[in-house]
Structures are given as structure tokens and as C-alpha cells.
């Protein structure tokens, strides 16, 4: 998720500082994306205020906690990236989960606050299941 990406950017920045200070081993960041960008130039699209997609995981992931693979629908609620908001499903070795996240302040209604103040995640197989 972009949260991770952002966190990694911070980690990378800290790592670079560390490298500069200690000449330690290089640190590489890495999230991989298969990104589908949807058209939003039409008035009826960008003012719709209700967006949905169907998503499912064909099978689980071998990613060990806390790492994962995931898929999501996201919208930007501001013209800049701080409006980034997403909802999707996430898989790792322990199961399949739903999650919701935003760069904006968030009030959690369900699940646990994996990203306090910004997002939440369900327990395994809550609402979502593999292949469905």
C-alpha cells in the first residue's frame, strides 16, 4: 500500500542518512505495482461520489507477516496525493483480509487500527474469502 511505500521512503531517507554517516550496506526500497489508472476527466465520473469495483484473490500469498500482497480501489479526494484513499483486500501467509486506509484522518468502524488514525484491517476471513 502507499502507506508502506511512504513509510519506506522515510526508511530509505533514514537509511541514506545512515549510509552517509556510516558507509553501511546500501538499502533498497521496494514495492511492486500493477496499476490500472481509470479515466476521471468526465464530469459525471469525478463528481459521482460513489465508486465501486469487484475484487477477489485467486489464492493466498506466501508473504510472511508483516509483508503482504494486496489489491485495491483508490481515489484521490484532493488534487494532491494527500487525498489518497483506498479500500481493498490483502493476503499473506496467515490468510486474507479486508483493509481501508487514507492519508486523511480516519475513524475506524470495524476491525483493528493497523494504521492508527489512518486505517484499519479485518481479521482473517472476515467478510472476504479466497476466490470469492
Amino acid at each position: 500500500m502507499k502507506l508502506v511505500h511512504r513509510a519506506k521512503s522515510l526508511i530509505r531517507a533514514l537509511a541514506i542518512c545512515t549510509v552517509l554517516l556510516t558507509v553501511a550496506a546500501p538499502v533498497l526500497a521496494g514495492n511492486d505495482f500493477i496499476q490500472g489508472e481509470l479515466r476521471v476527466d468526465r464530469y459525471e465520473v469525478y463528481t459521482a461520489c460513489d465508486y465501486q469495483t469487484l475484487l477477489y484473490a485467486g489464492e493466498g500469498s506466501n508473504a510472511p507477516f508483516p509483508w503482504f500482497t494486496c489489491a485495491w480501489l483508490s481515489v484521490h479526494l484532493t488534487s494532491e496525493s494527500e487525498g489518497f484513499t483506498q479500500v481493498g483486500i490483502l493476503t499473506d501467509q496467515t490468510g486474507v483480509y479486508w483493509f481501508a486506509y487514507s492519508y486523511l484522518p480516519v475513524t475506524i468502524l470495524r476491525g483493528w487500527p493497523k494504521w492508527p488514525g489512518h486505517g484499519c484491517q479485518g481479521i482473517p476471513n472476515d467478510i472476504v474469502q479466497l476466490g470469492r
Partner: protein
Amino acid sequence: MELVRRYYAPDWKWVARIYDTYGNGYDLAIIHSGSNRIYKALCVTEEAYPDPADPFWTAKFYHYHPQYKSGGTWYDWPASSGTNVNKITTTEGTCPAHYGALPYLGGDPRYWYAGTAGSNQYWCQVNPLFPASTTYLPDIKANYGGWNSFIAIRNNGSQTAAVQVAFYDSNGNHVADKVKENLSARGTWILPATDAGLNNWRGSAVVYASEDVGVVVNNHGPNNTNYSYSAAGPQGTTLYLPSTHRNDWGWYSDIAVQNVGTTAANVRLTFRNAGGTYKHQVTANNVPPGATRFFPTASYGQLGSYYGPAVLESTNGVPLTAVVREWNTASGGPDLAYHGLASAANRLYLPSQHKDSWGWTSWVHMQNPNSSSATMRMRYYQTNGALKYTTPTKTIPAHGSKYFWTGDYASQLGSNYFGPAELERTSGGNVVAICNEVNTGKALSYSGFPTTGSSSLCLPAQGYVGDWNTWTFIQNPNGASANATVTYRDTNGTWRGSSTPTIPGHGSACLVASDFFSYGTQGSAWVSANRPVVTIVNQVGSAGDQTMSYNGLLR
């Protein structure tokens, strides 16, 4: 998954919501934003991993039909546009070995897989994601027996188009693709199939574009043999092929049948003789979506020496399109091609007929798809709209075929006749027809128009280059004159010239590309008229069978 703006007291909020498989919705989180619009939307598959090495965790996700709600109704996310292109892209270096996208699942452009890859069927870039136009090309060759396909794609839109040409083998495998991100408005992209890295290959292709496009395929063979077809041929579960041959004065037919549906097609091809009697039948089951199966009459010894009509059917309801190539065994012998036809009519329009005009004569092959006979006659007109001759009627047997040959009317048409014609039913059911025009060592073919046409037509392949020039024939099927404007543009979409012919009722006009293009120029033309018209384009060179024709694309 849903992101929706709704009222959460004391004001409106954005809510992340999820639905279970029974359709029950669950609100997950409130996003505190007063925004009443969105600025960007994404559907993404992601791998999150620790530094430093990329472990390429397995990811297998399916994305299906993103939608937005307007006026209380859900709508599929709109097709791509030239300036706001929907596309799938992957992180550099991960595709296709590790991750990729597999679009158009089940032939549905809004259903795609994104995740762990490892096969050449996975795309690193899909552009556009939701095409505004999809065009099927049944017969594509790349260095195949000396044959090469050149695909002319015209952007009919008013803005830049993203275009993707996907090539499929006979098993439906997506074996290659070529992308042009920025095809200028009204510009033309001429793509040789060999540019996709294909060699000694024949198969099919599908053109996905973010704007409406018109496509013509020119197939150039050895010894100056050529044929072309407009790649927007009729589609249907039953297609009619008025003229097929085997060992008939050296003529044979290769029938390319493409599945344009979303599931595998079962195809049945039935040959009959001209009298309508059953001759032979062949089948091909499980033709994958997008794939072509070739039916060469040379392989069907049961036909013997044969000429007659054929019927192509999908026995499981999956739509097809087809191109029939007719070829002769003579060295450098002529080739021609026409579409399988879906729509029969009681009147068909033929923009170009010849009787010894520049050495050309015309054969109009009619097919009667009905179980009772049909009676037809031909009305040959002069270009000024005056009726030249109406033939006696001919009766086409049930399921059979018949032809009108201008050579049979030498005394009535004269020795140098050229003009448009109308094929008219006098009794029985509707028919389909094609026109083959032949000269010494040369031949070309086009399909009779079953309607009076359109006031807008796209002509994607025009040129005055090498030995080639293109001749455009516009027929006015109406009784009153039509005012037309024909605009020529080069491959960049730049205007190169226009003509404004007034076409008499039942008459025709002829324009030649060299009057508008400087030598060496290729491009397209667009016909606008105040009444519906029909158009063919003959592409003519100076050597051998450098002659081929395509039907103008109605818009």
C-alpha cells in the same frame, strides 16, 4: 469494494465499504474529507516487501468492472480517451517474469487479472485499459510464404488516441502486441506485422483504441500479388460466402474465420454448389476468443473441382467474422478478398462496374440464403446517374448462387463501360452479393452494400507512393443528387487536400489520391455527404496483381 460519500451526522463523509458475496454491505471506516469530487482513481495490485531484495511474493488478484454511480444508477467506468488514457502499467523490471496483467478475461475488457506472472501471456502494459473501439483482423501474416500484412489504422477522433494491436495465434495465445501511445487526431498508423517480431507466422489480431478508429489490412505477397480488406467486417453467428472455389480455372479459396465473441466458438462451414445442393462440410470446435481458424479449400478433396457458395455458422451462438481470400495457381496469379456477409437485402449497391474499361470486367456473385428461390436483376448506371441498362432477371435457387457478368451484356453496355450498379430483387427473399473485378493477371473484390450507406465514411488507406495510387469510388444510391466533401490527410493527420463533388442521383464520383497527395505520401480520406453514400477504394499499382480493394467504413 466501495468508496462512497454519504451523510454521517453531523455532515457528509466519505466511507470505505465492503460487500460480502451475498451483497451485504459493511462500513469499514469514515474518511474525514469534505471533498465532493475525486481527482484520480486507481485499481492496483501491489506487493509489499522488506528491503533489500525483492522476494516477489505471490499475488493473484482479479479486478472486475469498476463502476461509478450517477443519478442512482451504476455505470461501467467509461472507455479510455486520448488525453486521459486508461492503462495498466507494471513496475519496471517485474514484468513479465514476475508480475503482469492479463486483460480481457473472457473477452471482457473490464475484467482483468493482475499478479504473479511467468508467462508471455502477461502484459506489462495495456493501453488502453477500456478501449473505445475494438476491431478484429481475421487474416494477418508476417513473413508467411512471402506474405506480409500492413495494418492501416486511422484515428477518427478529434484527440490523440492510444492504440494497441494484439496478435493471437490459432490457439488464442496472445503472442505479441504493438502499442502506439499517441496517434494524432485523424492520423494513420501503418503497422507492418513483422514489426511485432513475428516471423513465418499467420494468425489474427485485435485493435484496441481509445478513440474510434478505422482499420484496413493490406496483404502483400510474392510476385506482386496483393489483397486487402477493411477490418470491420460483418459479424454474426451466420455468415455467407457467395463465391468459393477449388481447382476452378486455377482458383482456390482460403477462408479465415475469427472468433469475435467472449467464449470459445464451434464453427461449421458448409459448401454447396451453385444449384444449392450440399457439397461438403467441415467443422472446427473450440476456437478461442480472438483466434482465427483457416479453412483452405485446397485441403478438401471431397470438393473436387468446385465453384459455389458456402455458409459459415457458429453452432454455439458465438459471433464470428471472416475474410475469404481467393487465389489462383498461376505464377503471380491474382489474389482478391472479401468479407463473409451477415446481412441480406432486397437491393444492394455496387460502386464500381466495368465492361472492358481499362481492361476490367466485373462479376457480381449473388448468394441466396433462403429455402426458396429469389429473382434478381441488375441495373447498370452511368456515372452521371443515367440508367444504362437493366438486365433480364436471374433466378437464384434456394441456398444457391448466381452471377451477373458485364461480359454477358457487351452490346448493351458497350465496349468501354464504367459506372455504378444496383442489384435489385424482383421476387423471393433477400440476398447477399460480392463483386470481383478482373483484368489480365489482376483481380480485386469488394462486398455489395446492403444499405444506402452513410453520410460519413472512413477510408483508412490512401496513398500515392511507390507504384501505388488509390482510387475512391463514391456511389449515390439516392434519387436526388448528393453533395460530398472528401478530405485527404497524411499519416500525421495533416490536411493535404479536399474535393467537393456533387454526385448525381444513382451516379458516382471517382477521386484519385495523386490529385491531393504529393508523390510519396500515404494517409487517409474521409467522406462527408448530405445524403447517405457508399464507397470503395481500389489500391492499384503498376506491376502484376498490384490491385486490391476495400469497402469504405460507414460511420
